[in-house]
């Protein structure tokens, strides 16, 4: 166990140094790992800890992305500020969905459906609104201006993504020990018992939802200014929501390191299969792998890879 902690610390220290050492492909890969780790952590707050499964988080990403993009291109507002506007709008939607869901007692499957419905509504509306580019999408011209959150050097994105992931993970770790985190974990277990123990379940679920959607919205800004093009079908689509949630689920929903571990496992897998299969025109093969992985995790590893790993390692001392 000690060895693992040491390795993790070493990795942490090494990460900022990587870009200097590795080539651009590795940098891109890690950037994606960090970014999805961040998104996964954002989802983790409401999906993992509070146990409110949302399959519509792409809605928050999309809103954040479009908001920041529009503000930057149309009004010249720097995305460094725009990201907060995007986050705020995403949080507003989160508040709406949360209110509708929690006030009317939608749990489990019904809540999932609600979130999917909203992300699909966003998708259709965005695809039909000419002002934001309609079905063709919105494009950002590349200027490479750091003030506008654009960087010539891809390594900048690496560091930003790393910062996002570390910050969100730190936040979750901090919250886990405080009242907020403890209440969320309890809510996930048994809401009725929570109420009897004095927990205002509605308030805390809403807070979780607000935080989660806000963070995801901020992620949207990164997404917009990393890819420079926003297509409603992609940005608001269910597949993107799946990408967001599968990492924390496989890695361990409701744990601090789950989303990170999950991202380190899945992002390379996704890239590899995308590369390998896309050559032969085998679209979507990596999604089959995702589906199979999801099934596998549910059947054999319901708590996720990270908790399993921790338990396996805790047993080691007897072997030595």
């Amino acid at each position, binding site marked *: 166990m000690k060895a693992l902690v040491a390795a993790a610390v070493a990795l942490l220290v090494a990460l900022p140094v990587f870009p200097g050492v590795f080539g651009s492909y590795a940098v891109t890969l890690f950037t994606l790992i960090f970014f999805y780790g961040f998104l996964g952590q954002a989802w983790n707050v409401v999906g993992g800890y509070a146990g409110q499964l949302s399959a519509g988080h792409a809605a928050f990403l999309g809103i954040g992305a479009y908001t920041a993009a529009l503000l930057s291109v149309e009004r010249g507002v720097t995305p460094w500020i725009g990201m907060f506007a995007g986050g705020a709008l995403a949080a507003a939607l989160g508040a709406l969905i949360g209110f509708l869901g929690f006030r009317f007692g939608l749990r489990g499957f019904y809540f999932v459906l609600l979130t999917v419905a909203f992300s699909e509504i966003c998708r259709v509306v965005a695809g039909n609104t000419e002002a934001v580019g309609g079905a063709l999408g919105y494009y950002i011209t590349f200027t490479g201006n750091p003030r506008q959150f654009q960087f010539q050097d891809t390594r900048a994105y690496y560091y930003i993504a790393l910062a996002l992931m570390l910050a969100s993970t730190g936040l979750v770790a901090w919250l886990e020990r405080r009242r907020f985190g*403890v209440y969320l974990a309890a809510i996930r277990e048994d809401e009725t018992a929570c109420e009897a*123990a*004095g*927990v*205002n379940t509605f308030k805390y679920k809403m807070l979780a939802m607000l935080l989660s959607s806000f963070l995801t919205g901020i992620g949207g800004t990164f997404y917009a200014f990393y890819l420079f093009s926003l297509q409603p079908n992609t940005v608001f689509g269910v597949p993107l929501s799946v990408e967001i949630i599968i990492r924390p689920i496989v890695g361990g929903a409701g744990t601090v390191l789950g989303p990170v571990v999950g991202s380190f496992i899945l992002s390379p897998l996704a890239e590899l299969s995308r590369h390998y299969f896309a050559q032969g025109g085998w679209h979507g093969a990596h999604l089959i792998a995702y589906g199979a992985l999801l099934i596998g995790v549910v059947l054999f590893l319901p708590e996720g890879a990270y908790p399993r790993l921790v338990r396996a390692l805790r047993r080691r001392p007897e072997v030595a």
Partner: protein
Amino acid sequence: MSLLEARGISKRFGGVQAVTALDLDVTEGEIVGLIGPNGAGKTTAFNLLSGFLPPDAGEIRFRGRSVVGWKPHAICAVGLARTFQIVRPFPRLSVLDNVLVGALARHPRADQARARAREVIDRLGLGAKAAAPASGLTLAERKRVELARAVATGPALLLLDEVMAGLNPTEIATLVGLIRDIHAGGVSILLIEHNMRAVMTLSHRVVVLSFGERVAEGPPAAIARHPRVIEAYLGEEYVDAAPAR
């Protein structure tokens, strides 16, 4: 000082009148037993008092304030805690975390709450199991976890719903002792119980419910001989069979 005053509370479910115009009081410092045959409406009464169900009619005052229509967590916050008939600890959380949730209601700061939780856990004899997940415990231990959680919220009145159910005599004796101890710490108690011995030993006063109505009330000894009580439990034919004491 009157802690709980329920006047004329009623609840109907579809065609069934579960509770009818019930009056219930608990004074500070009392242990009140609530007994009655199955289906008498006891748990429904608890649900009404703790805010899980809104009464169709009637008034509920806790420490002088009307709490009708309050959400359960708000009622807990002002000092009324409850346990459940089918015990509900948080299965995947440790004993400590379980009780911590309760303690946080009274101590918002996590470190203070943790300290308080440890106190309660030790007092209820669960100290050794503090880190164990609740799902791995025996039934008796799980009941104590739920009890600890409720006690950690710092209640003035504790509603216990059939805590003795499913326990063996030793466990029951331990639990009775713990309840006495909690009471000594300044918590008034209203308990639903089928275990007559426990009720009679613990209660200062007993209220009997049958078909949603109060049919008798008084000190334990008197209740045991009360004709209407016997009738409620065993039926009319047995009223005369009660041994003369």
